[in-house]
Structure formats: structure tokens, C-alpha cells
């Protein structure tokens, strides 16, 4: 304990509480389970496949994981408040198409237009959830459909594919490399560091946890519940839009069919990373581990040449089920 100096006041009674060893173990599994499995998989993968631990392959995992990771960062905030954002897959695709569409007005427009539009979608969803008190599931399901519709109207039902010119600044943002890693990887890392600090060290972060833990209590403690929720959905929308923008830049075009079902992969990654679907607990470091874990599983299955890549879904699904069962069990055991 951190009580160095003796206090003048005599305590009326003294109670000492400490976590039992079992509780502590449960806590560790909850927070770092995904990281442990990730390390294990990396070791096993390196020993089994010679082509796995190469710089090129690992760099590949990093860049393909960076796009869902950005989306998952926003999703982590949303889920910790006890909400859900099903719209991110559509918003991700919309962001890409908008970037490719708007880049004709310059790089800044190519970056800002998707961010603003996707942020606005998040804002509308947040307002409906926080102020009108509609269920996040329904609101963001509507958002999923709406964003997809918007995307189709911009791309004339998918008939028009907007291109991002080779060599443009935007394209280079998506395609450039530094020390063998793509620019988006560095951006993702930076975003996660900022996200972690925001979550742990700011009043906003505290509010996010408090709302997910006990919304009514949080309101009574003076937490600005509605404002925090709105910000969280705006963040999620913007991060999905940014991710879509960079992905489009990497592919040099706004591909309209991307992002279908992405929201589910992202939610899976966040939950695997130890964030409780019921809200109130979770961390961005866990989320990164969760995203990488799913990325590594996919990569390893690809390494097994004769195994259909469809099995990746089966393995990820099974893994998710195991994690959720374990989480439920752990949190029940701790509450007893």
C-alpha cells in the first residue's frame, strides 16, 4: 500500500481486503489471455512453418490486421460503455468509396470528407442512442443498412469504381513502407497508444468505464452519460471511416463490396481481447492482441496449403465461443 506517513486520525476500525490468488489468476486470464495465446501461436507457427516467421510474412499480418484494428479500437470504446456498433463494416466501405470519390478535390478532401461523413453517421447514431434512448443494436443495424445504401448511391449501385491515382499522396499513405512495415501499421500503433491513454488517464475514459459498469450510478456520480455515449459512437464512426480510407488508398480504389460482415470480425476481436460484451471492463491492448490473434490464425491456415481458407472462419468462430464461455465463467466465479 502507498500510505507512507502516519495519519493523525485514528482509524475507527481496520479492515484489510486483498484479492485471493484465485481472483488474481482470473483477472490475469481475463486481461492477458489473448496475448498469451497469441504468443503461443507465434511460437508454434514459427516452429511449424519455415515461411511463417519471415519479415515479409509478419509484415503482411501487420498491415492486413491494421485496418480491422483501427475499427476495433473504436469498437472497444463502444463495447466498454455497454453498447455495440454494427454499422462499422458499412461505414468502413463507405469511407473508402468517399475517399476515392473526394480525392479529385485534393488529398485533404480525400482524408477529410470520409472522416466527416462517417463521424456524422456516428453522431446521428449516438444521438439516437443517448438522447432518444433507442437500443444500440437497432440503431446501428439501421446505420449498417443506411451507410451501405449511401455507398451504393454514390457508386451507382456499384457500377462506378472510383480510383485513387497511383503516386498521389493519398495512395502513398496507404502503400508506403518504413522499415518493412506499411504506414497504416504505424498510424494504428499511434492511435492505440493515444486510445490507451485516453481510456486510462482521462475523465472521458473514466466515464466510458463507469457508464458500462453501472449507468445509473454513473449518472448519479455526475458522469455526463449522454455526451460520453455520443462521443464514443462518433469516434467509432470516424475510426471506421479512417480505416476504410487508408484501405482504399492501399488498394488504389474505393471497392464497394468490402466490409460486409467486418463488424462481426471486429466485435469478435474485441471480445477475444478481454473486453466484456456487457460493458464496464476491457482494454485497448487486449483488443490489439485479439485482432492480431485472428490475423495470425488466418495466416497460419493459409500456410497449411491444402486446407481451405474457409476453415479460418470455423477456427475463429470456435475460438470466440471458447473465449466467451471462459469470460462468462470467470466473471461469474469472481462475483460469487
Amino acid at each position, binding site marked *: *500500500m*502507498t*500510505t507512507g506517513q502516519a*495519519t493523525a*486520525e485514528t*482509524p*475507527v*476500525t*481496520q*479492515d*484489510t*481486503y*486483498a*484479492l485471493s490468488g484465485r*481472483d488474481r489468476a482470473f483477472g490475469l486470464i481475463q486481461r492477458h489471455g489473448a496475448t498469451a495465446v497469441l504468443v503461443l501461436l507465434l511460437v508454434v507457427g514459427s516452429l511449424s512453418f519455415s515461411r511463417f516467421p519471415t519479415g515479409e510474412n509478419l509484415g503482411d499480418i501487420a498491415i492486413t490486421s491494421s485496418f480491422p484494428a483501427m475499427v476495433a479500437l473504436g469498437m472497444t470504446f463502444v463495447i466498454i460503455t455497454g453498447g455495440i456498433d454494427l454499422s462499422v463494416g458499412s461505414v468502413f466501405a463507405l469511407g473508402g468509396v468517399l475517399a476515392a470519390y473526394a480525392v479529385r478535390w485534393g488529398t485533404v478532401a480525400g482524408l477529410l470528407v470520409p472522416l466527416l461523413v462517417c463521424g456524422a453517421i456516428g453522431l446521428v447514431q449516438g444521438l439516437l442512442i443517448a438522447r432518444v434512448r433507442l437500443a444500440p443494436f437497432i440503431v446501428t443495424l439501421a446505420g449498417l443498412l443506411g451507410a451501405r445504401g449511401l455507398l451504393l448511391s454514390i457508386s451507382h449501385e456499384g457500377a462506378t469504381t472510383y480510383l485513387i491515382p497511383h503516386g498521389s499522396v493519398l495512395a502513398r499513405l496507404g502503400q508506403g513502407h518504413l522499415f518493412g512495415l506499411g504506414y497504416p501499421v504505424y498510424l494504428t500503433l499511434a492511435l492505440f497508444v493515444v486510445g490507451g*491513454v485516453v481510456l*486510462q*488517464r*482521462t*475523465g472521458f475514459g*473514466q466515464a466510458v*468505464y*463507469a457508464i*458500462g*459498469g*453501472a449507468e*445509473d*450510478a*454513473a*449518472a*448519479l*456520480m*455526475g*458522469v455526463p452519460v449522454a455526451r460520453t455515449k455520443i462521443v464514443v459512437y462518433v469516434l467509432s464512426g470516424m475510426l471506421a471511416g479512417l480505416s476504410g480510407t487508408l484501405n482504399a488508398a492501399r488498394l488504389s480504389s474505393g471497392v464497394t463490396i468490402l466490409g460486409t460482415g467486418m463488424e462481426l470480425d471486429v466485435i469478435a476481436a474485441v471480445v477475444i481481447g478481454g473486453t466484456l460484451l456487457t460493458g*464496464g*471492463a476491457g482494454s485497448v491492448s487486449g483488443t490489439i492482441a485479439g485482432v492480431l490473434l485472428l490475423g495470425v490464425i488466418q495466416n497460419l491456415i493459409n500456410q497449411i496449403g491444402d486446407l481451405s481458407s474457409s476453415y479460418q472462419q470455423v477456427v475463429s468462430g470456435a475460438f470466440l465461443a471458447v473465449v466467451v464461455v471462459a469470460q462468462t465463467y470467470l466473471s461469474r466465479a*469472481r*462475483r460469487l
Partner: protein
Amino acid sequence: MTDPVPEQRNAGDPPVLEARDIVKRFTGVLALDRVSLSLRPGEVHALVGENGAGKSTLIKVITGVHRPDEGEVRLAGRPAGFTGPLDAQRAGVQAVHQEIGLVPDLSVARNLLLGREPRRALGLIDTRRMHQEAARTLESYGVRVDVRLPLRSLGVGAQQMVALARAVSVDARVVIMDEPTSSLEPREVETLFGVIDRLRGQGIAVIYVSHRLDELYRICDGVTVLRDGRVVHQGALADLDRLRLVSLMLGRDVAQVRAEGVTRFSGAHEAAGEPVLEARGLSSRHLLDDVSLTIRPREVVGLGGLLGAGRTETAKAIAGVLPLDAGGVTVAGLPVRRGSATAAVRAGIALLPEDRKAEGIVPTLSVRDNIALAALPRLARAGVVSDARIDRIVETFMRRLRIKATGPHQPVAELSGGNQQKVLLARWMATEPKVLLLDEPTRGIDVGAKAEVQALVDELAEDGLAVLLISSDLEELVEGSDRVVVLRNGAVVGELTGDELTEEAVMTTIAAHTREEVA
């Protein structure tokens, strides 16, 4: 202890908080009727009354959750006009609620300092200083914990202290404690009283809501007794003896108690034979302490006691709904598996819960389906239920219990409260129970329906059922029961039968001193 209750040294001070002629209606129902209350700095004021007396509504008006329809709340002589609980908190009116208003998964320190965390440059939270500050604050409340742990890992008492410490540390002028000791150990209660004494010394006024008379008399200066939304007594607690306080709360004038009753109980049935229900040593932490009781066929046993004494918990424990630490139940000599509601139902125990909306009635279903619900497994043959058999049973009970409905297919939501209660009763009767546990069977239903339900309870007992009756209506309890077991703080403190069974005797038993030796 030299002077547990300081003299009214602050009698001359202007009141810090005043509620003046508060009137509050909910859809036409009068919840508060010209209630006034005034608190001086450093006063600990008891607010007492039974369920539905208006305590919670008054607290909600004072803390800005509800706007009064008439009257006003004044803080330090000025109209408070709180727009909400947050507004009230900022002005220094803090409420510590029964269900602790904190976030269990956040750390102790974060809970204590949420919104007021020490900051560093860039506005980032200074975690180390936050932990130091939290540990220091809590230590002065007698709580020594690792403040980095989640709040959930603390004992209930320590959690309550954190809530209290948080409430007081925000420049509180008035602290409202709603049943603060309901989940505390005796030792923790002492700590709480120490803290309250300190608040008193700092000139902070406390509104103390509790049903534990010992506590009230130990720490409260003044008292306001509410009943049916009205103030029935206000003054110094020292001038009011216990029996008088209980009679005020329950609304039964000691002198008036002997007057003719108006319930419809006949008392014709007579208990016979071996006990069909035996509950032995039911214990559950904080809730029940070694409660034993037996009921014979054709007998109605009443459970007496104030709110929170453990009446509902006893019924739930018998029905297998409340997890028990010790004790057990036998029906007709056969033990019932502990903590299993299914086993209890199979053994013939039926519980009519207190909150029929939340725990019983399925409003969208018809009268018929509501009645058949619990009996379905019994009526099924190889998993198939014969409609004709259900119809027969439903018809029998609708007639027998005199359920007023347009027909078996009317949705239950359209029935009156009394008839809904009868539908629930019919549902359980259809399972052919041996033991019927009735938790406040006549609450919230009109006078006529009340009399019918009471007559029905009588009839059921006559037919050979063993009945446990819980009622806050003292008259109903005394006249409806053959025997009354009185509970206080989760333990049996007395049993009254025959001629001893009078309203006055029940009140005396409730009010009896138990902790005199403590002082």
C-alpha cells in the same frame, strides 16, 4: 460513552434544509400531502414509515429527482429549485442509496474520486496521487484497503463506506442515508455511527432512514414519521417511546387496537395433526439468522415485523428462491432439496410473491393461460397437454376463486388488481400445493377485493392447506392468522398465539429492546 446524543446545541441555528408543504401526485394518486421537514446543521434526523408511506418520494423530491407539485425545498434559506440529482449534489445535498450508487468494476480509488481525480500536465489523471489521496481519505473512515482493487472485491460494509466517503467529500451540507445498515455487520455499523458522529461535529445534517429502532434511538435527534404520504408525527426522538413510534408507523393507535376489526377472516378453521411444513434454522448472510417455523394443515401462520425484518426473505427461502447458508425445509416429513425452486414446487410449496407484476403475472396472456402456466407439467401426458383438461381446471378455479373476467380468454392485464391476484392464486392452486406462502396478498388492491382475498385465504386453510401469511396490515395479520411469528433483523423474536395474539402484542414484540446491553 459519555454523551452519545449531544444536547440540542444548535437549536438556535437557522435550518440548513427545509421542505415546506410538499405535495406530490403521481397520476392522480397523492404520494405526499403537505409534508414539511426542517433540518438544522449537525442534526441527525430519523425519517421512518412503512412501505408506501412516502419516504422515498420525499427523498426524491429533496434530491431533485422529482419536482414537487406544490411547496418548495429550501437550502440555507433560499429556494433550492434543484433540476436533478446532480444539481442537488453540487449544492451539497448528497444521498447514499441502499443499492450503493457506485461502479463495481472500477477500482476503489476511481470510484471515490470519479470526476475529481488529481491531474497532471495535459489534464491527464495522476494515478499515483489518486491512489494516495484515496487511501488517505478511506483510512480516516476506518477502511484500509488496496485502493487499486475493483470496488467489487470489497465487503459490502467497506463499499458503503466508500459511497459515504465520496458523498461527504464533495462539500456536503446534507447527507441522506437510505437504510445504510441493511447490509452491514455489527462492527461496521459501529464504524458508520462513528462517521455520523463526525458529520454531526462538522455541522453536516443527516437524514437517516431505517427501520431498526435500536439504531434510531442511538444516533438520531429528531424524527419524522410518515404514513400514507402525511406527517403523522414530528419532534425529538427522545420524547417518543418505542411502542408509540411503532404504533405511529403502522397506523394503529394503541388504544384503538382493541376496537372491532373489519377484516373478513372468520377464523373457523382449526389446525390439526402433524406439521406439514417445517423450516429449520434458515440462515442467509445479512438476511436471515436461524429462522425456524412450522405450519400444520388447516393453519394460517402470520409473519410479523417491520419492513426489512426478513419476512419476504423467509418466504423466499422456504420456496427455494433465496440461497441459504444453513438450514432446511421439510414438507410432510420429507426434506426438500435446498436452493431449488423446482424441488420446492414439486414438494407442494407455492409462493405468491409480493411484486405480482414483476414476479408473477404474464400480462399479455389470457386468464386461462396464466392459470395453466404452472400446472402444465402436471397436466401433460407424454408431453402433450389436453386442452379439455385445462379448460376444466381453469373453469373450476375461476368459479371457486370468483375471478371476475369476461371469460377465460380475456387478457389478464385488463383485470383489476384484486382479480389479477386471484388469477395468480388460482395458478398455484392448480398445482395442488400443500403449503401456500402468501406475501402481501392484499397489497395494492381495493377494499372490496381485499375482503374477498381474505375470505379466500380462510377457505383455503379450511380445505386443509398450510398457509404462511405475510402482511404489513397489522389487523389483517392478527385476524387472519392462528399464530404470528415475529421477526426482527432477520431473526425470530417472538411467537404469539391464542389470546396473546393482539395487535398491541405484535407491536410490543417488534418494539422490544434487544441491544440494551450494548450501551
